[in-house]
């Protein structure tokens, strides 16, 4: 749009997504200033963080959760914003809902008061997580004040080994580049490994860009993108779609584009990856040993020591065999249909270990319906998983799904921060959905390739 007095740029946001945790306060801020929502047709709302996954009957059992939902309902109604409420068939985690409805389209600038907005970059969008004051700015002006970003191209080439998934790819990238390696950057993922991925896999990769410190993730739109969007509820059909497709294709970055940095990865180096510590970069291949705290600066060593203390893990011990008590499959990282399909395929004929509480939480009502249509919920239930209603669930514990005490959770979510899953001493081990399934069956961190006898390529 133009530049501001302090040198920042004013950037128009084509799509604004909101949810109940970071947005209600912004409506209050608007009211204080006597402002209206400028372009209500460009904002869409859903409820995900606080929604229980056992029963969603109203009023919600938690009074404050009920109140947050009510504020979202009344604010969206007052300002003419479309709200994907529970039981409408469209509710779900905000980063699952946007793409599956086709609201997310190539070339868009997208923002949401949620750091995992990076997910939408999988469609060739610039998708930014923002704070509540910025939600206010977007509601009032449909624009944001922004500093320019540098771009790092992350090339990943080659075929992934059997049992290695998109989740392992992004955990590996973060492990190598660090949790703050991306500060000041947008990450553009490219290379044959990425172009061969489905849209849902690309979303998993972009989703965790923020865990690497990057402001957003991006993948060039291509035929895979267009095929995914074709027929989606909010995407035009016929000749209008063809015209859009041509325009979308034009948004792809050029072969000879300039990058501030380029990093290359070989897909064959990537193993099923699990975290051992309290940041997503504290990750190792499932066959490796937990690191020791004898290298790096004093602060680096302190980081390893304090992470091991918190996790109650021993340096130099194998991560495989670490007992778990909870298994969680879901979240905006890995709560889409293909995630549940992949697990259903391997878990048939296996049973969750008797001491493990295992839950599968579809990312949206659409994912739930599609999974049920395929009978996946029965496969999960037969194996000993509970099949829940859609929501953020155990990713962040703002709803009743929480760890108790120092339980260890094998989790397909995105953050293993201290206390993240609702207990101040709870422990999270991040991994792919099939690795969570393997851990659930074994009752301990395990290699899905061994548990499910996946044959090597």
């Amino acid at each position, binding site marked *: *749009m*133009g530049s*501001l*007095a*302090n*040198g*920042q740029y*004013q950037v*128009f946001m*084509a799509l604004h997504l909101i949810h109940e945790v*970071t947005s209600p*306060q912004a409506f*209050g801020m608007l009211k204080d200033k006597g402002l209206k929502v*400028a*372009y209500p047709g460009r904002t869409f709302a859903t409820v995900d963080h606080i929604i229980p996954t056992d029963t969603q009957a109203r009023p919600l059992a938690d009074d*404050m*959760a009920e*109140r*947050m939902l009510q*504020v979202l309902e009344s604010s969206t109604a007052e300002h003419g914003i479309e709200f994907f409420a529970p039981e409408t068939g469209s509710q779900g985690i905000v980063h699952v809902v946007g793409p599956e409805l086709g609201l997310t389209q190539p070339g868009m600038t997208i923002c949401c*008061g*949620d*750091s995992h907005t990076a997910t939408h970059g999988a469609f060739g969008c610039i998708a930014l*997580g*923002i*704070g*509540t*004051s*910025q939600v206010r*700015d977007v509601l*009032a*002006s*449909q*624009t944001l*004040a922004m*500093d320019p970003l540098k771009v790092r191209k992350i090339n990943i080439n080659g075929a992934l080994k059997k049992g290695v998934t998109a989740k392992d790819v992004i955990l590996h990238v973060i492990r190598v580049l660090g*949790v*703050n390696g991306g*500060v*000041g950057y947008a990450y553009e993922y490219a290379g044959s490994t990425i172009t061969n991925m489905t849209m849902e896999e690309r979303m998993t990769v972009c989703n965790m860009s*923020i865990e690497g*410190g990057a*402001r957003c993730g991006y993948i060039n739109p291509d035929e895979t993108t267009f095929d995914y969007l074709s027929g989606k509820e909010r995407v035009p059909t016929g000749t209008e779609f063809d015209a859009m497709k041509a325009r979308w294709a034009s948004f792809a970055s050029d072969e000879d584009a300039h990058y501030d940095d380029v990093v290359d990865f070989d897909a064959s180096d990537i193993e099923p990856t699990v975290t051992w510590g309290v*940041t997503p970069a504290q990750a190792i291949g499932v066959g490796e040993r937990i690191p020791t705290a004898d290298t790096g600066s004093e*602060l*680096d060593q*302190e*980081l390893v020591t*304090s992470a091991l203390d918190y996790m109650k893990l021993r340096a130099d011990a194998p991560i495989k065999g670490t007992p778990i008590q909870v298994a969680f499959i879901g979240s905006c990282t890995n709560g889409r249909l293909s995630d549940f399909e992949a697990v259903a395929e391997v878990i048939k004929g296996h049973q969750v270990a008797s001491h493990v509480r295992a839950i599968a939480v579809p990312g949206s009502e659409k994912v739930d319906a599609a999974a049920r249509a395929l009978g996946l919920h029965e496969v999960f239930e037969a194996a000993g998983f509970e099949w829940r209603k859609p929501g953020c669930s155990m990713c*962040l*514990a*703002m709803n009743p799904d929480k760890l108790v005490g120092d339980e260890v959770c094998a989790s397909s979510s995105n*953050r293993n*921060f*201290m*206390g*993240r899953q*609702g207990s*101040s*001493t709870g422990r999270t081990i991040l991994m792919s959905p099939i690795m969570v399934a393997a851990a659930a069956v074994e009752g301990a961190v395990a290699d899905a390739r061994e548990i499910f006898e996946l044959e090597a390529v």
Partner: protein
Amino acid sequence: MSELSKIAGRGVYVAGNDIDTDRIIPARFLKCVTFDELGPSLFFDERFDANGKSKDHPLDANQHEGASILISDANFGCGSSREHAPQAIQKFGINVVIAESFAEIFHGNCTTLGIPCLQMAAEPRSELARLIESEPGEELMVDLEALQVVYLNQSFPFSMKPSAREAFLAGTFDPLDELLASREAISAVDARLSA
């Protein structure tokens, strides 16, 4: 919103790299529809155990009571975009954060709220943290114009994102009025994209 160039206050050092916003404000405290009550919940699980017993966190040390300048290490504020984190920091009474580096969303949230984020290299920062531990009663003077903190007659250089520094010095760190000033241009972009 007024211009901000010099800020005085006592300091407190909270050590650690990669302190994420879940640690700054655990998710259960995000159940609220206003930010007003967040102050006491700042760093809650770092300050108190599951029974509410104090863990002797620096923020609760007698000598740091009333401190308004928080010093930490690298990648401060990473993770969740929750503005609840800087809101809790501000409501607790902290109005400047000094660190090796900041996560970007957190940095942006702080700036809009009027909390300058100062990047200070490891050497001066650890010296400053050491001095604060030994002489906690004295005030630091933060000078955004001169890009230095003065403490006990010693000067500690820092850097800032130029756009943030500019915004504080001009008193435009909350950008909303400026954004709204281009209503017509915004409307033109909306119309073009809607076509």
